[in-house]
């Protein structure tokens, strides 16, 4: 099926779900004050978008996400590279990584709140912690998975260790690094929303909880829809970057 045709097909399934949702609500199968139909959510969504009131919370949430994410990517790539190239550092750090990585990061939020309060510092830290590990692990695997033929070629062409890292290992592991970064982006978004719900006073997560507390269910769902769009948008953006940065990965 041609690319565009496939995408249109997918759109059909989304519309189908929305239609089903609407019908279920109209048939009275659910409590409308708990699950309003899309036809009631849409005006609330329109109101939020048209008034521009979505900009501030969106900006707050995205801001925290991007700062934490950038920190995590830089640290993750650096650590992954170091651990991949140095057996000594790998042996030193790997147990530590393996202990911290499996901890579901949301479980750390209460502890972080004690240390960092409920402001920007805490949110950025939570995002950074969650986003660090996928990038680190994938970078590590990318570095270790560089084709030995490439490394041998570098040796026979007289490249120094530093040159090999810079010219061969880094570009060769880029596809894996980007995979890790993409996973990290999703995880970062989850954490920032969660942190905002549990402990903050601004951002989309806080807003969704607040709307729930005052039983404004329709705007609450509208914001969830906005959140879904944000997640989708970030992914699409990432794919575009990936296509340009590693055009050879599918070949």
């Amino acid at each position: 099926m041609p690319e565009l045709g496939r995408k249109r097909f997918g759109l059909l399934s989304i519309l189908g779900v929305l239609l089903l949702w609407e019908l279920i609500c109209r048939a009275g199968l659910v409590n409308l004050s708990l699950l309003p139909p899309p036809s009631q959510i849409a005006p609330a969504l329109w109101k939020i978008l048209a008034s521009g009131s979505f900009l501030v919370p969106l900006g707050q949430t995205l801001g925290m996400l991007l700062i934490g994410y950038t920190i995590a990517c830089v640290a993750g790539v650096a650590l992954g590279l170091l651990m991949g190239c140095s057996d000594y550092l790998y042996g030193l750090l790997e147990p530590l990584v393996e202990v911290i990585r499996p901890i579901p990061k949301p479980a750390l939020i209460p502890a972080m709140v004690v240390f960092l309060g409920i402001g920007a510092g805490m949110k950025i830290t939570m995002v950074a912690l969650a986003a660090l590990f996928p990038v680190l692990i994938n970078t590590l695997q990318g570095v270790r998975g560089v084709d030995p033929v490439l490394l041998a070629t570098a040796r026979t062409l007289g490249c120094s260790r530093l040159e090999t890292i810079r010219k061969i290992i880094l570009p060769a592991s880029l596809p894996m690094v980007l995979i890790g970064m993409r996973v990290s982006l999703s995880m970062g978004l989850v954490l920032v929303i969660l942190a905002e719900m549990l402990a903050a006073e601004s951002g989309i997560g806080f807003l969704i909880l607040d709307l729930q507390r005052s039983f404004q269910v329709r705007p609450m769902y509208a914001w969830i829809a906005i959140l879904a769009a944000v997640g989708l948008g970030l992914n699409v953006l990432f794919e575009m970057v990936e296509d340009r940065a590693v055009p050879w990965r599918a070949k």
Partner: protein
Amino acid sequence: MTATASYLSIRDVNKVYGGQHGEATTALKSISLEVKQGEFLAILGPSGCGKSTLLQIVAGLIDGTAGEVVLSGKAVTAPPPEMVYLFQQYSKSLLPWRTVEQNVALVFESKGMKKRDIATRCVEYLGMVGLAAFRKHYPWQLSGGMQQRVAIARALAAQPRLLLLDEPFSAVDALTRIELQSLVLDLWGRQGLTILLITHDVDEAVFMADRIAVLSSRPSIVEMVVDTELPRPRDAMGTRELPRFLQLRHELVAHLLNRQNAGRVDA
């Protein structure tokens, strides 16, 4: 024959794998060869007999368990600067994120050359393999044969005196193979290189080399060394029809078949 030092000396190279926990396998029992400067030596043997291992030891990429390799009077412990190795999986040896030209340029970087000079040299070497027009392409946009030519161009750009080729043409079709063989012979003749070629193709060995060393299967030794005694320059069609070619080819194939049928255990 005499005491004149060879350019490349391979002495009693032995390679054993494993041994620490499992059974030790001897890939190379004892390989000794003397190679003269400017010579084209083919190493012929069945698959799995350790030919690649031998070549990598000669290249300094891996260490032998015993024996030594001496190049221009110096022992080889790491890839020597005057040597270039052409891998069997040539497509994996090309950097996919660089253009063809940039792949060749890898050789010139960190030598303090100006960008413009590097570009000129790259075009020069790509021209030698007939790919100057493709210099802005990426490796994955080229056919297998073209990729191999890029690898050759890059190898030449390093201005080696010794070229090690690991079954370089086994993965291309017959016609491309003939083209590449002629190309390599042409470059060899003009640049005065010394070439070691690993192959399992008898035709190829006879067509290209001055001498052919035949390896046994594991644990390998040099079973025999023959001079091809064929006139140069070699001609793709003509040489292959000479009586000497056919005779030598017949002998070698018979020898290899005999050994195969003699019920020897393949390691």
